[in-house]
């Protein structure tokens, strides 16, 4: 037990991989399924136990973005495990958890559990599917838990391959095109990340003897001062690396294709977890390591965010394929994450993190809802659907919750993230906030950005409700009369998601902010702000 509690994070990361090994030796298809679901469930429970072990009762005033220590300051990074890996370059096996990664980890294990249940219907090469599935989970947990840049990069890459095969083998008719597009795009990001990583390591040699890949140490060392052309270059490279993942316009076109071709559970994971690697990377690496460069380039990032928000929403409005529409709505919502990062205020960063969690829940739900109708009607053409409210009342009920959450209806999770990012953007106008205080932004620029961003609430309502109308309202169509309503398996997936949208929307403090608040306060100090 003692061993477990001191190696909790490592166990968490590698447990799914062990599960994958067991799936290899599983005798039957059903055994493979049960093994996968069991391991996903155990991992989920284990990740919940993190909440018990995690110390989150620090005050934001004393919170520091640092390792926990015995002094009276409150280091937010906890449960650290450290081992030398490649000593020549000071590369370590270094994992730890703070308020930024904890919600991501729980989101990951939660979505993987539901996706495993949703994968029950996979018949084609089920064993291979579940092996890749569990490997993917290990990779993603590694990304969210590693605090060493090199380790992060390794996990970042590891998570890429299973996804490539999951889309390329189990996907729809154009799966190979979508898979290779996804792969190459992400590879492009990886190269940028690789260069930035090596550059950062070399630059760190000037302040830390021998250099380091330790992300927390790098952030604390503030080696980037003053803003050098190098810092700007590395920041831009990191930005490219993560913007591909988020995805931000104009690097987003892999997403609709990947989603349209991916099988339902993989779509859920792709939208709910994989995209979060990008947002998480921004907050874990790009911003803490190069805060000055980030402030200098805030307008670029903010414009990318706003363009993603509005352009993504407009594209969604113009779609007739249900799944493409949801994919573009992801682009729009993840634009809010980018915007939240760009504004660098406490509220906007908290909001962006919340948005990632909220989007994880709602997008998983929406993609699953798409899958439900695709299974029955065998197409996703919005112009041909209609009148389903009468034949599938339970499906209609869950859809209202999912759609409403996605368009930011209060009391559901989408609202909190959306409104906090927007409020945080307005708050950047305040003289105490970093962009104005450091003189990088003018009030007029911020107001313009904020006002344009606010129009997302009109567009999201328009495309979501119009979709709702096209699928469910209108006279009942004879060809869909006999469609069965949700079955047990589908209810099993949708109910937890629906419950989470409500809980997150009503009690954001309990579920997310209790953890993120202190970490974000620590990040704010890194950005150059007193808490």
């Amino acid at each position, binding site marked *: 037990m003692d061993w477990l509690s001191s190696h909790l994070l490592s166990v968490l990361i590698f447990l799914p991989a062990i599960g994958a090994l067991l799936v290899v030796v599983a005798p039957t298809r059903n055994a493979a399924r049960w093994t996968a679901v069991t391991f996903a469930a155990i991992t989920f429970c284990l990740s919940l136990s993190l909440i018990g072990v995690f110390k989150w009762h620090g005050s934001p005033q004393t919170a520091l973005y640092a390792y926990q220590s015995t002094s009276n300051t409150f280091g937010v990074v906890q449960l650290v495990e450290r081992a030398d890996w490649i000593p020549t370059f000071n590369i370590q096996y270094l994992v730890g958890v703070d308020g930024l990664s904890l919600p991501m980890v729980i989101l990951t294990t939660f979505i993987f559990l539901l996706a495993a249940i949703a994968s029950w219907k996979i018949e084609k090469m089920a064993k291979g599917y579940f092996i890749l599935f569990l490997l993917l989970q290990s990779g993603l947990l590694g990304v969210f838990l590693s605090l060493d840049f090199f380790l992060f990069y390794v996990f970042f890459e590891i998570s890429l391959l299973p996804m490539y095969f999951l889309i390329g083998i189990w996907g729809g008719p154009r799966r190979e095109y979508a898979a290779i597009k996804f792969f190459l795009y992400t590879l492009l990001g990886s190269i940028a990340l690789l260069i930035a990583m090596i550059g950062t390591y070399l630059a760190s040699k000037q302040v830390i003897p021998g250099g380091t890949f330790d992300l927390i140490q790098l952030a604390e060392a503030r080696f980037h001062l003053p803003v050098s052309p190098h810092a700007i270059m590395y920041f831009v490279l990191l930005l490219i690396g993560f913007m591909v993942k988020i995805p931000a316009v104009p690097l987003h076109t892999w997403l609709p294709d990947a989603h349209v071709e991916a099988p339902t559970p993989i779509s859920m994971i792709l939208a709910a977890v994989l995209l979060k690697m990008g947002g998480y990377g921004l907050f874990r690496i790009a911003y803490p390591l190069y805060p000055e460069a980030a402030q200098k380039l805030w307008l670029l990032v903010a414009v990318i965010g706003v363009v993603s928000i509005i352009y993504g929403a407009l594209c969604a409005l113009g779609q007739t394929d249900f799944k493409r529409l949801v994919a573009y709505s992801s682009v729009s919502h993840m634009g809010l994450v980018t915007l939240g990062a760009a504004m660098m205020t406490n509220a906007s960063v908290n909001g962006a993190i919340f948005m990632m969690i909220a989007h994880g829940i709602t997008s998983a739900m929406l993609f699953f809802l798409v899958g439900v109708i695709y299974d029955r009607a065998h197409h996703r053409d919005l112009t041909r659907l209609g009148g389903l409210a009468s034949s599938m009342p339970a499906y209609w009920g869950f859809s209202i919750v999912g759609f409403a959450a996605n368009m930011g209806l209060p009391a559901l999770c989408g609202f909190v993230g959306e409104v906090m990012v927007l409020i945080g953007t307005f*708050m950047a106008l305040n003289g105490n906030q970093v962009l104005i205080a450091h003189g990088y932004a003018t009030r007029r620029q911020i107001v313009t950005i904020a006002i344009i961003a606010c129009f997302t609430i009109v567009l999201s309502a328009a495309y979501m409700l119009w979709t709702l109308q096209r699928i469910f309202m209108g006279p009942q169509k004879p060809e869909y009369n006999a469609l069965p309503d949700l079955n047990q398996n589908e209810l099993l997936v949708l109910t937890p998601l629906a419950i989470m949208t409500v809980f997150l929307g009503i009690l954001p403090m309990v579920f997310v902010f209790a953890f993120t608040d202190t970490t974000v306060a620590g990040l704010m100090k890194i950005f150059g702000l007193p808490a």
Partner: protein
Amino acid sequence: MPTPALLLLIATLLPLASFVLLVFLGKRLGNPLAGYVATIAIAGSFACSLVAMMLWADVSPASKWGMGLQPLNLTMRWIPIGSSAFPNGLHQDHAGFLDLGMYVDSLTIAMFSMITLVSTIVHIFSIGYMHDDKRFSQFFCYLGLFCFSMLGLVVGGTLLQLFIFWELVGLCSYLLIGFWYQKKSAGNAALKAYVTNRIGDVGFLIGIGILLFHVGNVSLPALWILLGDAGFGGAVTLPNGEVFTSHLLTLCGIGLFCGAMGKSAQFPLHVWLPDAMEGPTPISALIHAATMVAAGVYLVGRIFPILTPEAKLFIAIIGCVTLTLGALIAMTQRDIKKILAFSTISQLGFMMLAMGVGSWIGGLFHLITHAFFKALLFLGAGSVLHAMHHERDIARYGGLLRKLPVTAVCFGLAVLAIAGVGFGHVGFSGFYSKDLVLAHAAAFTTLAHHAGKSAAWGLFFTLPAAVAYVTAFYMARCWMLTFWGKPRDLRLYSKAREAPIMWIPMVALAVLTIISGAPWFNVTGLLNASIRETTAYCQQVNPQFRGFQSRLALEEPTDERGPEARDSRDAAPTPGSVQELALLHGRDLVKKYVAFAFVFGIGLAIFFYSNGYQRVRPLMKVGLIRWLHTWLYHKMYFDELYMYVFVAITLGFAGFSAWFDQYIVDGLVNATAWCTRRLSMAASWTDDRVVDGAIRSIASLTRDVGSAARAPQTGRIRLYVTLLLAAVAVGIAGAIVVVILHSSAGH
């Protein structure tokens, strides 16, 4: 928690409980049990509100709350926005958090009683009205959610909470407008309502954003205390020394008002309300007449102290345009529900005008009286529709007085109320509230005259005064065409029956319609108490607070005797001041010009419509009148304008974006891929010819690995391995560049 607050909390949560219960058990409970459950819940809410009202009004000196004493402000932290980033100089309970909370004063209690009462009546009515609907339980389920959201809105102590419930009532409105979703028109109307509201909400959000960045808090009391001087024009200095310029304050006020414009169907966002009549009629009565659409007025009432004179002027102009436009269009409509819808728009315009000219009490008083008589009108219309097989065209009614006597009488009483019938000091409810609004509008124009403004400012009185005549006319027209004359569709007429279950709700509302404005009913007393309470509360912190005082938009920052001379706890203007003289003059104007508007209006309607359309037919032959009629009948073509301009542009943009994304952005990506492939082919060709055998053997090794990995994949695997290698090569090259850069930077 103090008892009144607790009671209101229970009153708010009861409908939520009914909603949750019906979501899970609605089908099993079925018809009519589900209706009973919902009705009992909302009746319980009403009982709670009533007890709260009694406790509140019972002013024993020992009690800590009650009329004229302390309002209750309870808050809880909700989301963090950064701990000490926004010191505004005010002591805050939860600095660095956005709060949810309750703010309870007399206005809250008055609104609660009104909303729960009307809701209860509408619930009872609906049990009869919806009895043959297949989705009976779902209807009451939505109703429960609506009542919860509406009560949550009214009890909200922060702008954020108002916004939250604001959106929720919007969703309920969406679901209920689209309740009969099999009809295409219902789905369209629901979508239109929600999206139009959201356009207003953008303004709301911007307003909240502007307030937040300066003040760091959006709890209503904090805003009142900090920005209570905004109403007197000029910049406001916060206690921490920051200056909130008057331009920004105006922008913020107009932004918040945009939200109210959407919800209260003010011009130019009024287009959704007539379409919303696609919903079941009890919904039109409750949501789209009595409660939700009035939420905009309520919001303006709550943010009143922080509105600058310019913002108020904007509100007055919008109100004036809306009330005129609504009344004119209502004159020509043939659909009974649309007549009522436009009448609602017009009356909401009256309320907004009242707010804009500084008549806080007038606006909210009219809100409450209007809720009763408009709900009655809609229930009456519902009863007619029920009897007439949902035929909504009044051209096919006529002579229904004999078939539906109770409905006709009740509807008639409501018509008299909305027309403002009254003599001297006694009249129907609408008489009192409308006169109050008009008197304040007249006082406003008088002050404008004093201040040397142009004659155009007179429109703030002449337009509403003229509309008072029009209102009496179109409402009397509606009644005459429905209940008087000869039946124009005998088939429908012969089958018409009145359902007795609908009598009780209508009679109850009829009683309220008659009495709710009377001085002894004391709505204005309650509203005055609200002002006193809020003022007293704010003055505990800011002794200078005068946010509600004599708030005409044109008022000079100080009158001759200086602000100190006023009794800042009372809403009435100081005796002898310019304001009071203007008010007296205003009352005279109303007595002289508007007191008998109903006589002309109703008389004209009786003259023209005593026998169906016969007397107006000759008028229609006049070109100008026919042209005007067509223009008004088509709602001034606003729908077409919006459809072919804004909606078409947005959808066009959307289509273009989708096309652009697929063919241009993605096309570029594919083109790059194509080029890379050609390039790599060329490279491999060169490679084959140029590089020697050692390299070739490595290449063949690569090929072997490639074909081994090909098992699960067919086709592009070689390309992808090549590209992977190329990518790694580029990465290494980049790394080398970085190393070189660094080594050179190191020196």
